[in-house]
């Protein structure tokens, strides 16, 4: 289990800071290149870069000419420096044209009616499926050559991209409630566009502009390489490259200066635009789920396992920010159904998943023991973990359809692991799959095998996933909210199916739920979790009948008694303190109606009497007949 996290992921904030720096540096260097180009236009006379001198043809780099001269005897350094600002201006002109045409066009299409929208977008899309350079060629045919004409052509073809984005955003914003109400209250279209639409448009347009600038430099260089844009003898990066290609046999180095300047500009634009889109993307740290599946299957060593199939002993689980599961102990007797109940964020799923070695990346067991059928999981080799998952532990997830592979038929979900892990032939695996589907109550197993996940209802999909979990004949099944995502009518049936299977197959079931109704219906014993700790445990009849902890009492009060109805636990004011927060005493104190000074003074012990245990000072003192008389005055 250790090392499952791999290298700790960089904190999101640190990453953002680095991304911002990347954008700043990229943009600053671009400006620097441009300024160098500008300075060059004011200091180097254009004659020195265009005047031919046949005596100095193809001079190698040296004192007089730092980069040498080209085949017409012109100084290469001067030409390269002068080319920079020419290309910048051509690209900026093209982008300006694109924005000026494209953005208003897009807003216009978006503001117009649906019919207008469909017709114009058809045309825009048709243009966008023709390669940009071909569109520019058409523009060149009608406008003619030269820097300004080609920039107009490039600008026109880019304007369609802007139009498309502006139109989409306008349509989105138009239907926002605040814009709708502004329209109804008679705000004019012009003001609507200026006040609401333009500001929201800015963001996506800026992202796109970074990408378009890159394409612009590529196109500008291409067009002048073709001799369509900047006309010789005036220098531009594309012209320089064409000259260099002509002279490549005699002076191959000439290819480098202009090419490297171009690569530098485009590289910097790429870094900047990548940075901008990273910054605006809302992706979290990548989930490295596969890290848990390393290692080779290994034979499980013989161990004596006793009567308990799962033991979680004093386990503490830590993530970057701190502990999320604190000193938790849980066990499952063979054939027992045990519920782990709590609100979301209580650490119940984390606790349960530690028993399958499925902790999310970054979470790690730092103290305690986990044993499945006597096998130690903490510090176990990845291979042993895999073997346990394939044979001893089955997991059922909350959302069956998203847990299924969209490109696999039902059949493959049931047969693939059996063929790969258990060496069954495909026919054997298929036969077993049919049997299993029958066992989980699917009427037409053969038909079901051929279906894809998206063709299943939630209830059927969860039955399939239960069958898949049974394929390895596990002795422990961990079910993470197995019915919460299902229709309420199906919930009871799926739960009863699990209970029935438990009776015939004798596995023990760890049922993670937030519903006391589910606990009452299905479980033998229950653990109540709050903010990373177990606060109460015992037989279901005991805990539900005589709840000791005020939190359990509140949970029960929030649910209509003896009814199978899932309901968020909202009976309490306030919210669960984050498990990672260090608190001196009782973690429930902030919300407890009975809180007293002693409660926050130090850690509250977990005290058991007759198999019913809780972590509450008040409950412990009240139950202790002798102490009650003497110390009642301290208590609420």
């Amino acid at each position, binding site marked *: 289990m250790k090392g499952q996290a791999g290298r700790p992921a960089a904190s999101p904030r640190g990453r953002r800071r680095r991304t911002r720096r990347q954008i700043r540096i990229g943009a600053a260097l671009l400006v620097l290149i441009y300024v160098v180009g500008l300075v060059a236009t004011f200091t180097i006379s254009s004659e020195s870069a265009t005047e031919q001198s046949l005596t100095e043809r193809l001079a190698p780099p040296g004192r007089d000419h730092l980069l040498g001269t080209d085949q017409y005897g012109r100084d290469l350094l001067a030409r390269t420096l002068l080319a920079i600002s020419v290309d910048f201006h051509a690209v900026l002109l093209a982008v300006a044209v694109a924005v000026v045409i494209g953005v208003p066009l897009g807003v216009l299409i978006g503001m117009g009616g649906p019919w207008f929208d469909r017709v114009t977008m058809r045309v825009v899309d048709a243009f966008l499926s023709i390669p940009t350079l071909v569109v520019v060629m058409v523009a060149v045919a009608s406008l003619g050559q030269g820097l300004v004409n080609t920039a107009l052509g490039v600008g026109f073809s880019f304007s369609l991209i802007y139009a498309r984005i502006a139109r989409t955003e306008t349509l989105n914003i138009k239907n926002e409630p605040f814009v709708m109400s502004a329209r109804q209250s008679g705000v004019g279209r012009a003001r609507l566009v200026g006040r609401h639409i333009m500001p929201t448009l800015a963001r996506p347009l800026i992202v796109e502009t970074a990408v378009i600038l890159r394409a612009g430099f590529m196109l500008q260089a291409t067009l002048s*390489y*073709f001799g369509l844009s900047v006309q010789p003898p005036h220098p531009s990066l594309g012209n320089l490259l064409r000259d260099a290609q002509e002279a490549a046999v005699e002076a191959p180095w000439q290819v480098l200066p202009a*090419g490297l300047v171009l690569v530098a500009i485009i590289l910097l634009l790429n870094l900047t635009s990548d940075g901008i889109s990273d910054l605006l993307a809302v992706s979290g740290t990548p989930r490295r789920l596969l890290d848990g599946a390393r290692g080779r299957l290994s034979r499980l060593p013989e161990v004596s396992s006793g009567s308990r199939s799962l033991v979680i002993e004093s386990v503490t689980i830590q993530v970057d920010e701190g502990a999320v599961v604190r000193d938790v102990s849980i066990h499952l007797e063979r054939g027992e159904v045990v519920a782990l109940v709590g609100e979301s964020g209580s650490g119940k799923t984390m606790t349960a998943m530690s028993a399958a070695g499925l902790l999310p990346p970054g979470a790690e067991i730092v103290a305690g023991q986990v044993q499945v059928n006597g096998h130690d999981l903490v510090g176990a080799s990845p291979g042993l973990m895999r073997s346990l998952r394939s044979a001893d532990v089955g997991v059922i997830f909350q959302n069956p359809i998203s847990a299924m592979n969209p490109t696999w038929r039902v059949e493959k979900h049931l047969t693939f692991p059996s063929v790969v892990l258990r060496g069954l032939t495909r026919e054997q695996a298929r036969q077993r799959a049919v049997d299993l589907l029958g066992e989980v109550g699917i009427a037409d197993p053969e038909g079901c095998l051929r279906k894809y996940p998206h063709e299943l209802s939630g209830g059927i999909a969860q039955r399939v996933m239960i069958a898949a979990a049974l394929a390895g004949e596990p002795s422990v099944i961990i079910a993470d909210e197995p019915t919460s995502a299902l229709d309420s009518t199906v919930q009871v049936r799926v739960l009863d199916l699990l209970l029935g299977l438990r009776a015939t197959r004798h596995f023990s079931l760890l049922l993670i739920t937030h519903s006391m109704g589910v606990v009452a219906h299905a479980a033998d014993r229950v653990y109540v979790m709050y903010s990373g700790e177990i606060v109460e445990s015992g037989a279901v009849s005991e805990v539900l009948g005589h709840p000791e902890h005020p939190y359990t009492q509140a949970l029960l009060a929030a649910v209509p008694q003896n009814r199978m109805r899932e309901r968020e636990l909202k009976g309490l004011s306030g919210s669960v303190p984050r498990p990672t927060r260090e608190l001196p005493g009782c973690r429930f104190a902030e919300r407890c109606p009975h809180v007293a000074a002693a409660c926050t003074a130090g850690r509250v012990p977990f005290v058991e009497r007759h198999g019913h245990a809780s972590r509450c000072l008040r409950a412990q003192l009240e139950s202790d007949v002798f102490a009650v008389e003497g110390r009642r005055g301290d208590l609420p």
Partner: protein
Amino acid sequence: MVYLARLVIGRLGSSLAVLLIAATATFFGTAFIDRRPESYLLGPTASPESVQLLHEKLGLDDPLLVQYLRWLAGAVQGDLGTSWASSQAVLDLVLSRLPATLSIVIGSMALAILVGVGLGVLAALHQSRATDRLISTGFTVGHSVPEFWLGILLVTAFALHWSLLPATGYVPFGESPTEWARSLVLPCVALALPVAATLGRHSRSAVVAQLGQDYVRWSVSTGLGRRTIMWGAVLKNALTTVVAIVALQMLAMLSLSIVVERVFAIQGMGGLVLSAALSQDIPVLMAGVIVYGAIVVVTNLVADVLQATLNPRLGAAS
């Protein structure tokens, strides 16, 4: 299979519409230019009578709409008109140039997919480790190298300096298959590299996105190993996204191919369109728009079918 056929037929209509719209826009977008093919066909000393005759032959004195409809009637029957610059049939011109362009484009795309997708998947497998960082940096750099500069560098090094491969020109397959292959190597490498870099970046993130999906966690929970999950489950899912990206990159690749054809002096569609633009040879220009558009449209169609086959959920949605 039925839904695939329905998909293809459904898309075919809108694809033809795209081509028609693009050609029409080209026709009317260039309507205001001065149409004087005589300067190419007859030379500067042509007599007014012969100019008159030529205009009549090409129908240039008719109203624009009539000209357009005449073109459309011909196009429907597979006749794309006559070039104003060479008085050859446009279709013959196109057919003589298309093989070279298709060879380069298909060859480069195959190479780009092989290198780009391969490295992208490799990087995703080693996410945030040294291999990944190396490959991703390579992508960023490769993404920033203009293809024609790369082409010039390649020619300078491999053709002019070491004389390993031909510097320019295209040899038809029918003439000599080996020379055909040799003439394609450098242009294909120059064209494939930037596209491979882009494909690689996107393939990497497509795989990384899959790795975070719930079904991966389920697969892990069954005890399956990392490699099995990767090859048996994740890649097929990521492939759907990759196919879409490849189709998108076709558009960029066609633009680049025009440049690469020029760098290597290959007589392909790119040169045809370029000279048509310079000589304002509208019939050829329109044919160019249609041919390039058709390549894009066909690519998209193939991509749609592939996606629907790979991922039945997408097939059901369309």
